[in-house]
């Protein structure tokens, strides 16, 4: 089970809190700052597992680092090497703390499994619209709850 790399901000209690319900993909609890992608993410050719960054030049998150964050994205795209690249982030210590995947597929399901971080999908609201980069989120995958503390 992952633990956050930094403590929750003290002002959390004052923030607006939302709760989304989803389906378990990988069990466990994780919390941290959200990095939200407005568009699908590629594994092979899309991320650098050595640095934990998005490297696709035309991507909205080009250059952003997901290490130590909760990565929220609509779906996986591109090569079937997707999961292998996310597994490599775990092996190289650059993995996100947790994943929230709006629409899951074989590529991203396997990717979440081999990254071994708490993951939810099939939420009752679009996580890429409800959550913004910088919000603080808590995934309780076993119960299916996703708590969002708006920044």
């Amino acid at each position, binding site marked *: 089970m992952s633990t956050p790399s930094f403590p929750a901000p003290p002002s959390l209690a004052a923030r607006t809190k939302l709760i989304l319900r989803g*389906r*378990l*993909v*990988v069990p466990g609890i994780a919390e941290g700052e959200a990095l939200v992608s407005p568009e*699908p993410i590629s594994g092979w*050719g899309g991320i650098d597992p050595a640095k934990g960054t998005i490297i*696709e*030049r*035309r991507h909205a998150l080009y250059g952003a680092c997901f290490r130590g964050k909760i990565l929220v994205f609509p*779906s*996986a*795209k*591109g*090569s*079937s*090497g*997707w*999961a*292998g690249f996310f*597994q*490599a982030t775990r*092996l*190289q210590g650059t993995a996100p703390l947790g994943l929230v995947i709006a*629409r*899951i*597929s*074989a*590529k991203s*399901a*396997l*990717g*979440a*499994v*081999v990254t071994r971080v708490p*993951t939810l999908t099939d939420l009752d609201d679009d996580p890429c619209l409800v959550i913004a980069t910088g919000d603080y989120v808590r995934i309780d995958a076993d119960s299916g709850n996703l708590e969002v503390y708006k920044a």
Partner: protein
Amino acid sequence: MLLTDDEKRMRDGAEGPAVAAAMDLLLRYGRALGAERLCDIRNVAGTMTQPSPVKAALVKEGGWDKAFAVINLDSDGDFAIPDMRVPTCQLQHGFGSDALGIVPYPKQSIELQADAEAFYGRRGVNILATCTPYQVGNLPTFGEHCAWMESSAVIYANSVLGARTNCEGIASTGAASLTGKVPCAGNHQDENRRGTHLIEVDPRAGVDSFLDWGMLGYFAGGIAGEDHPVITGDFGRPDVNDLKHFGAAAATSGGVELYHIPGITPEALTIEAAFGGAAPADSYWYGPSQRRHVYQTLNEIGASPDVDFVLLGCPHASVDQVRRTAAALDGRSLSADTELWIMVPRALREIADRSGYTAVITRAGGRVLTDSCPAMSRTAPAGTRVFATDSAKQAHYLPAILGIEAWFGTTEECVDAAVTGRWRGELRP
């Protein structure tokens, strides 16, 4: 998940620790997919031999058994890898020894891969070494459940052959190879194989060539994303090369794993059958202006007409494509500043050699190469700034991977660019 007695035995270690680790991965993966059970498969296309820095370090630490456990089974265990339980093939990987001294590619990677081939060959992995296993004898039958990766092969298996596979990954194909099982979800189930988007082809779009089927595929992927386009309308009858290009392009611009062309592909004989009796959610028109837009998108990275490098054979070329390239190059020679590579499965190069095609291409200064491609191995001839290709997939990926300009056109335009060193391609009606 509901498991059979046989599956429970494998999970509980009756077949040894490697098989138990494989079952553990399949159960974690099945839960992630929301699958209720596993399905039996006896055809796996995966990757074990492709070199990488992470893999090299694991091999150094614990040999190929360790590398397979970590990468191909997602396991932390230490155990020996048994023989493959079901027929398993290696897809495309890095360049082999036949590229030594020709392609700028590290010798230690070639050696690591040769070592891997020896290890996995002993465990029953067929080293097909191509993104097109269906061209060299791995042809699943209609309705057969498989565990394949490589997006262009997955879409071909599902659509052209009517086999059933999800777009698997390295760990799921590894686990499938030791168990003959994969989660029964997605493309394995009837209800998930229906069409979603109808694309009607205008006769004025003139879809009747390798180039045009690639462009139509790129359009279909952009429309359908991860869903299932259904193609209808007025077009020439595609051959296997056209469908190979169409699928690779649709899997590149979108994430298409399955399409139907009633009257051509086997699973749906009519549009009604393709949509399972339901009305299509959306329908789209592919006419001359859509065709021109796709052509411009695939050529938007090209600025300089000075072509350094021509790449053919993505996905790996058929013998007919090699013959066509040889015919276009016969009696000509490449520009001094330009290289031409055509990528083929090694088994088909044997036929190209035997038929005299390789000699014609080599005499002109071109290269018939195997096992890999510039995108997989992240390499091109030294100093390449501008490349030309007849593959929509390679035109899409290579500029991002290697930071070079791209031109997309017909095979003949690409050969012309290799001979003159200049791009003179244009979209003809």
